[in-house]
């Protein structure tokens, strides 16, 4: 490479690295908790020299991306399985992991077609669904899908409904399918139903039908110093207020 070009490349590289030296907190967060985290982050960065970026996706997709070396400082998963996955692979610091918030599992329908469904009645949900599709998260990679599968199995409805699933790659997509009327019903988190004005809750899955829905949060190994500060803020009262306004609950023990 010619000398001036080499110097220019080095200068650009130095500039880029210098820009990244400003405090950064990069959060990989499950899709359903990302909007609340964004609100909290906006309040947190006011008056500080910190930049907080949030990347929302299904927990499984995020875990695999972190495994592949994606730059992240904090990981918020929608279930323990994917957090355990990252801890086992040595990606997340086990000592930093704790449950941030909890959530509920609900059945939703488009707002203009919402009629309550009695989940205790085994025939009610299949009848309400008919030949239409039930939007759920993809069970193997989306925690909401795994919880939905577990809840339906414990209620004895899984075998009847599995052929009518419309598996989505994250909960937000499942929500959109119901809001748009493409899928007649959907199983999403209580917080998602609250956030989407186009859907209404027609039933809530009893807590006994699924494992407690908790959102573990952990520091990725090699996280920048600002990350720990933000995680501490997340344990505080301002963050708690935002979470409970969105419909999150205290994590079950």
């Amino acid at each position, binding site marked *: 490479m010619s000398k001036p070009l080499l110097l220019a490349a080095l200068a650009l590289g130095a500039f880029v690295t210098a820009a990244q030296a400003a405090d950064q907190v990069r959060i990989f967060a499950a899709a359903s908790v990302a909007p609340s985290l964004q609100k909290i982050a906006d309040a947190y960065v006011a008056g500080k020299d910190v930049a907080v970026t949030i990347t929302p996706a299904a927990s*499984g997709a995020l875990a695999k991306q972190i495994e592949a070396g994606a730059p992240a400082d904090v990981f918020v998963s929608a279930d323990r399985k994917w957090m355990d996955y990252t801890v086992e692979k040595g990606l997340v610091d086990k000592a930093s992991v704790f449950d941030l918030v909890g959530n509920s599992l609900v059945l939703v329908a488009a707002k203009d077609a919402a009629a309550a469904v009695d989940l205790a009645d085994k025939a009610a949900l299949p009848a309400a669904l008919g030949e239409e599709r039930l939007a759920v998260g993809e069970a193997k990679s989306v925690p909401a899908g795994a919880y939905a599968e577990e809840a339906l199995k414990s209620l004895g409805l899984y075998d009847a409904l599995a052929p009518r699933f419309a598996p989505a790659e994250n909960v937000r997509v499942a929500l959109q399918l119901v809001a748009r009327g493409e899928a007649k019903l959907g199983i999403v988190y209580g917080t998602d139903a609250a956030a989407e004005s186009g859907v209404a809750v027609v039933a809530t899955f009893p807590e006994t039908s699924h494992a407690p829905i908790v959102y573990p949060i952990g520091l990725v190994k090699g996280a920048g110093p600002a990350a720990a500060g933000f995680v501490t803020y997340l344990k505080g009262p301002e963050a708690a207020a935002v979470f409970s306004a969105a419909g999150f609950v205290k994590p079950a023990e």
Partner: protein
Amino acid sequence: MPELSPAAWSAIALSFKVAAVATLWGVPVATALALLLARGRFPGKALLDGLIHLPLVLPPVVTGYALLLLLGRKGPIGAFLDQQFGIVFAFRWTGAVVAAVVMALPIIVRAIRLSIEAVDVRLEQASGTLGAGRVATFFLVTLPLSLPGILAGATLGFAKALGEFGATITFVSNIPGETRTIASAIYTASQTPDGDAEALALSAVAAVLGLIALVASELLARRARGALS
């Protein structure tokens, strides 16, 4: 032979079905459009050309989203089709065909247009002076001469339809057996904890199929050029 699960074979079979039907529908439509662009002279021709090529330059997800807005159950065209004919594209392989046609159309149109333009206009004019009407001239003169080019375009379109992902998954989601084509199956496999081996195997299959289709298309195009020179 790669180790593939029944679900993977189902995805491959579905991809073939969707791509075949998409090509079957796409080629006549593309031929008509190519003829219009090659021989027609009308206001707005450049705009039509641009609209046809739009899916080529837009992110596929945007095209899929546009299809969802127009042909989804609550969209203007989709609601009409649902109420009048009971036709619904959501989660159906027919919707995957629509997405594939829209994405492959610009490529097929380009290939066919080039081959129609290579047909000497004087041959068509001669046919006219001998008493053949425009339709007869098309079927007896233009079409046979541009056939190798049309076949090349069809093969190219088939290859494109085989690999379509972004517009398909946005428009008709990822339903195993209905809309889980090879590309969507690879995407799902790559997100499952132990799905990497399957994702790799399917990717290899997709690459080989794509390569076969592209080589076939190139050979047909060469024959087209040879036949006309």
